[in-house]
């Protein structure tokens, strides 16, 4: 009987260097890397890239259309939109990264416990995850912020909490798949200790779906933050956020459309880039899924 089973989860990629190269060679992967790279550059070098102090108002230059001084124009307080967008990138990335780290950290731990040790712990963990999952993302995040109070820290915590279940599920499912593979049975038959199996054999093999999930969750977290800020329940003024900039713009849509267009474009491009990168990463890490 010749039934060749394909190896589960991934075919190994020796080293990360070749992973990046593979991503770069894929047109979508390259587009995603460039997009994400640019946003990260904006975030990291915001103080050097921004042309004006971020909160600086200028009553003489209210509603200035894009020009040589104010590249993206100014808003109702005469603040430079370009500078606010640059700092907004910083806020988006920080909120995204912190929230996803919270989610990924807890999700990884819970998923590993549920998948590897099974039994009662698994039942309890998965029940809690199902409960969290029953609340729409944005609604639960809003609810948490409404109760804890509006602040950047609470926004990050809220987005982090709502993203825990998806990581738990991903990690648990991957651990279970890996656990049932022959190479784990093989590791047991060699006489490896349980912990050695967990860290040397299971963990490296679930990194691929985990990384993909993290990339996609980053785009989701940035989106949630922007939505919350748009509704006035996320990042609070005077901190710049793309979501709240867009919300402010709605009142002046007719006279200053640039107030809406630039933040909208940056939100869309950022989320799109992360999604494209996530897709490309999945294709590279898991050729089986590439259809």
């Amino acid at each position, binding site marked *: 009987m010749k039934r060749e089973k394909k190896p589960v989860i991934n075919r190994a990629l020796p080293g990360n260097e070749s992973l990046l190269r593979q991503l770069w060679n894929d047109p979508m992967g390259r587009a995603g890397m460039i997009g994400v790279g640019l946003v990260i550059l904006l975030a990291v070098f915001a103080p050097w890239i921004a042309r004006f102090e971020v909160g600086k108002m200028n009553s003489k230059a209210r509603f200035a259309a894009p020009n040589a001084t104010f590249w993206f124009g100014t808003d109702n307080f005469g603040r430079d939109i370009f500078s606010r967008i640059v700092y907004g990138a910083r806020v988006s990335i920080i909120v995204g990264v912190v929230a996803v780290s919270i989610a990924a950290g807890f999700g990884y731990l819970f998923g590993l416990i549920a998948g590897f040790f099974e039994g009662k712990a698994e039942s309890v963990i998965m*029940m*809690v995850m*199902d*409960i*969290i*999952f*029953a*609340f*729409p*993302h*944005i*609604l*639960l995040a*809003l*609810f*948490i912020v*409404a*109760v*804890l*109070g509006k602040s950047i820290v609470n926004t990050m915590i809220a987005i982090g909490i709502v993203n825990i279940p998806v990581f738990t599920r991903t990690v648990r499912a991957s651990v279970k798949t890996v656990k049932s593979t022959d190479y784990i049975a093989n590791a047991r038959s060699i006489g490896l200790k349980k912990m050695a199996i967990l860290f040397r054999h299971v963990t490296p093999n679930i990194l691929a779906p985990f990384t993909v999930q993290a990339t996609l969750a980053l*785009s989701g977290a940035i*989106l949630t933050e*922007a*939505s919350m800020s*748009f*509704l*006035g*329940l996320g990042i609070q003024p005077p901190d710049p956020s793309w*979501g709240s900039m*867009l*919300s402010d*713009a*709605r009142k002046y*849509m*007719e006279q200053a*459309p640039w107030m*809406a*267009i630039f933040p*909208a474009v940056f*939100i*869309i491009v950022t*989320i*799109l880039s992360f*999604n*494209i990168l996530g*897709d490309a990463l999945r294709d590279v890490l898991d050729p089986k*899924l590439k*259809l």
Partner: protein
Amino acid sequence: MRDYIIRRLLGLIPILIGISLAIFIIMQLIPGDVVSGILGIEQTPELRAMWEKKLGLDKPLVEQYLTWIGKAVTGDFGESFRTGAPVFPEIMSRFRISAELAIMGCIFAWIIALPLGIISALKRNSVIDRVVRVIALMGVSIPNFASATLIILFLAKGFNYHTPVKYVGLFENFGTNMEIMVIPAFILGSVMAGSVMRMTRSSMLEVLRQDYIKAVRAKGAPERVTIFRHAFRNSSIPIITLIGMQIGSLMGGTVVIEQIFSIPGLGQYTLTGINQRDYPVVQGCVLFIAVLYVVINLLVDILYTYIDPRISYN
């Protein structure tokens, strides 16, 4: 089959208890306390004691929870702090509006996504496929509020068109109601459309590779039969699962969309509640939406058993 449904219904109970507990626990985290929130600067010890008694805050936590949940099952979600009106009837009347929006959104999403997803899978790596994949990616990547703002801007600048501000019910004036709802519903559906398109494509591709599809073709089946009777039906299970899960984000999306388009639905009610710290409203809306999500997903699970005979057999 009946056993399966009963089993699933029983399985629902711990989840529902968990949901209500989660909401109750989060409510306990409110900094300061509810009463000072209501009374503001007018508080006197007498008024305070009166409100605490009225809200049952003088009782132990367990009793507070049981009282709340006991009332909730009978449809008593308490009264709004701001208006004093009972919350549950308000939720129900506003839910009708949100449901209309959500259903229209779903219909838009399916009409666009299912055919495009199928075509994309059948013609994979063609120009059509690439275009569809880009559209789908845009769908999942463009936030509701961004596309809504841009569309409003575009309509205003380009056509000097403004969506009606005052909401008119479906049965009051069908035409006006549609005029109000079409654009929001379309935007609401676009995220779902994107993910359903992607899922349809990948699920169809997976099924099209199966041996039984080859066997159906070998029997001399017309493509129409192969694709719809066999391939699409088999690939519909992950698609339906996704749709069930998307109901949650759809309800979340109404919060944003209703705010932008001034539609007095459940989402707007929730948001107003949150902004005004009107806790019975928030608590009631969140509980209602979470339960709704769980119930819809139960229906989805039951739907599976009609599609796939293997499922009810465990």
